């Protein structure tokens, strides 16, 4: 049982070249300005906020993206001090990220990647039952209504936005996650696909995985139960509440909170 604790986190973006992180900010520009967040094992938190509020940077910082520089504060997951670990060590500690804009990897299928990755999580790779794992990959893909061919094609190469999102959830479902950060999984998904993705997230929740959902909209909350909803603005959490907060934002927009 591990709690994700973020304390007074200040982050600057080193090289804003990538739109994936946060468009429009200059080099070394402060993005997160004192985030405090406590996510107990098994909880689901939703982080909402207008464009450019720092949502994706928060997710990327937890996984220690090289462009997100922590200037102050700390991130911990149980005993693991994430703020001084490398990305792969964080992943192997069970903290995984579904990227908003996952990269294409030519010549590497999701099956290749997962079979390599999953062995990194086990202490006895030789005892690992690979055949069973391959079946799990297929079953999960079917649950997401993904044709088998997606499992052997180059990962994310020529995939639609929705297909990429499903790929991310597929990977997070199959690796031994304890805490997942899901970055804008709902953008670019039609309602049927969103339901399937939400179902997988619900399964993770049922398994006791802690979840951070980063989103613009509350529609995903129709299928997922959230313990807390936070509004992020200019790199700070300006308001926290229950699901009612998300509903209120959908109805009235962010302005009521931002102007306050």
């Amino acid at each position, binding site marked *: 049982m591990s709690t994700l604790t973020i304390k007074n986190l200040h982050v600057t973006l080193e090289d804003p070249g990538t739109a994936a992180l946060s468009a429009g900010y200059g080099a070394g520009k402060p993005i997160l300005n004192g985030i405090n967040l406590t996510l107990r094992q098994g909880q689901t938190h939703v982080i909402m906020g207008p464009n450019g509020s720092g949502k994706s940077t928060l997710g990327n910082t937890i996984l220690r993206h090289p462009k997100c520089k922590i200037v102050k504060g700390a991130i911990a997951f149980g005993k693991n001090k994430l703020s001084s670990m490398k*990305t*792969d060590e964080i992943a192997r500690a069970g903290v*995984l*990220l579904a990227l908003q804009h996952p*990269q294409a*990897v030519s*010549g*590497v299928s999701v099956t290749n*990647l997962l079979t390599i990755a999953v062995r990194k999580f086990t202490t006895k790779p030789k005892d690992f039952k690979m055949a069973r794992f391959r079946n799990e990959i297929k079953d999960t893909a079917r649950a997401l209504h993904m044709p088998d061919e997606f499992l052997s094609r180059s990962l994310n190469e020529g995939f639609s936005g929705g297909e990429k999102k499903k790929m991310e959830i597929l990977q997070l479902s199959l690796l031994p996650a304890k805490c997942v950060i899901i970055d804008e999984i709902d953008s670019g998904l039609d309602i049927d696909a969103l339901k399937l993705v939400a179902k997988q997230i619900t399964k993770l929740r049922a398994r006791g995985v802690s979840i951070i959902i980063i989103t613009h909209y509350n529609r995903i909350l129709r299928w997922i139960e959230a313990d807390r909803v936070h509004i992020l603005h200019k790199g700070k959490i300006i308001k926290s509440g229950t699901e009612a907060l998300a509903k209120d934002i959908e109805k009235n927009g962010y302005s009521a909170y931002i102007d306050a």
Partner: protein
Amino acid sequence: MKTATAPIGEHTKGGGSDALPNRFIHRAKKGITRETVEEISAIKNEPAWMRELRLKAYEDFVRLPVPTWGPDLSGLDFSKITYYQKTEAGKYQSWDEVPSDIKQTFEKIGVPQAERAFLAGVIGQYESEGFYQKLRPKWEDKGVIFCDTDTAVQKYPELVKEYFMTKCIRASEHKFAALHGAVWSGGSFLYVPKGVHVDMPLQTYFRMNARASGQFEHTLIIVDEGASVQYIEGCTAPIYNTSSLHAAVVEIFVKKGARCRYTTIQNWSKDVYNLNTKRSIVEEDGIQEWVGGSLGSKTTMLYPCSILKGRGARAEHLNIAVAGPGQHKDTGAKVIHLAPQTSSTVISKSISFGGGISTYRGQLKIVKGAYGATSHVQCDALMPDNISVSNTVPYITVDEEDVAVGHEAKVGRISEEQVFYLMSRGLTEEEAINLVVQGFMEPVIKTLPLEYAVELNRLIIMEMAGSLG
């Protein structure tokens, strides 16, 4: 299941600790003269026609200049090279007969193991001459001939005389073809009779162990009408500091409706000039496939050529070149479309790192009258750093209007985002980079038998180890 390692070669960074003691029974003096050529021919007890071919080639060698259109070859000193060295008096048919030190060298790289597991036949060559050859009886009974080329000169003179440097590659073409013609030794001779499909690969393994030596094996493959074969060549040399020269010639004849896949994985030590000439003449509806992996060496010049002579003939070229620090890979493909409805595909992948230079140099020619010909050339370069070089030099001549020709060239880098993505799945930075590299090579790797695919991946990753990140 017990798996055999493919005999591509051990990695050569470890130094020459596995070098064998000198055990030469014949060793030519350093440098090349008319007498050297005559001596080689005499030791081999060759018929007059071969001796004359050699001497004529020697004249061409003296006359022709060192080519200057490609990589710098000025470090190559023809007078410092030993052109012929023979270590074994006999030829063995069983590994039990092979002297234990040589046997160990070949066991270390997995040759006997692979032979037992998945090969139809094997030739082992040590220094200048073949010392081991074995073809499974099943194929011998069907009339397949697989032996070293010196043996073929003695046993099958009519076939060799007809095809050896007469109609495919001529000694007079360039300096290295001429040198090869003069001092060639060893190599494989493969004949597959009409309609015979050899469904297991045949392999020849060349090992160059001596310092400042030359290896000039000649491979001659004739695939008769409707037959098919897959032939694999692997070459290595341990590390030395005196430049050595490898100037091989491969001539392939693919007859009507026949198919030949020629696969070569070369892993020379980093002081070898690897300058080869390889060509296939493909007749009606024949298919020639070239699959190549070029590792190691100081300078490599290699442009396998397919001459599509008969209607409907097809060529597929797949090549991977890896150029690390101090290395220059000048590789590519040549395809000459001489007949209607001929088709060709070239996929060339190169990886340059640590300041290495790789150049794709390719020629595509479609003559008037080769209507309906199609050709697609794709060159992909991967450069994980900013200090390496990748060039693309395509020469395209099309004299027929009714053709479809495509050329694509891409240069890719391994991006920080890609590495982050893979690391976020638990892979270390090194594993992430390796996976991107493996993915890049995958279109070529997947055409190899599994054992070779695994081995080539391993070799490339070892070659790049420590140079990235």
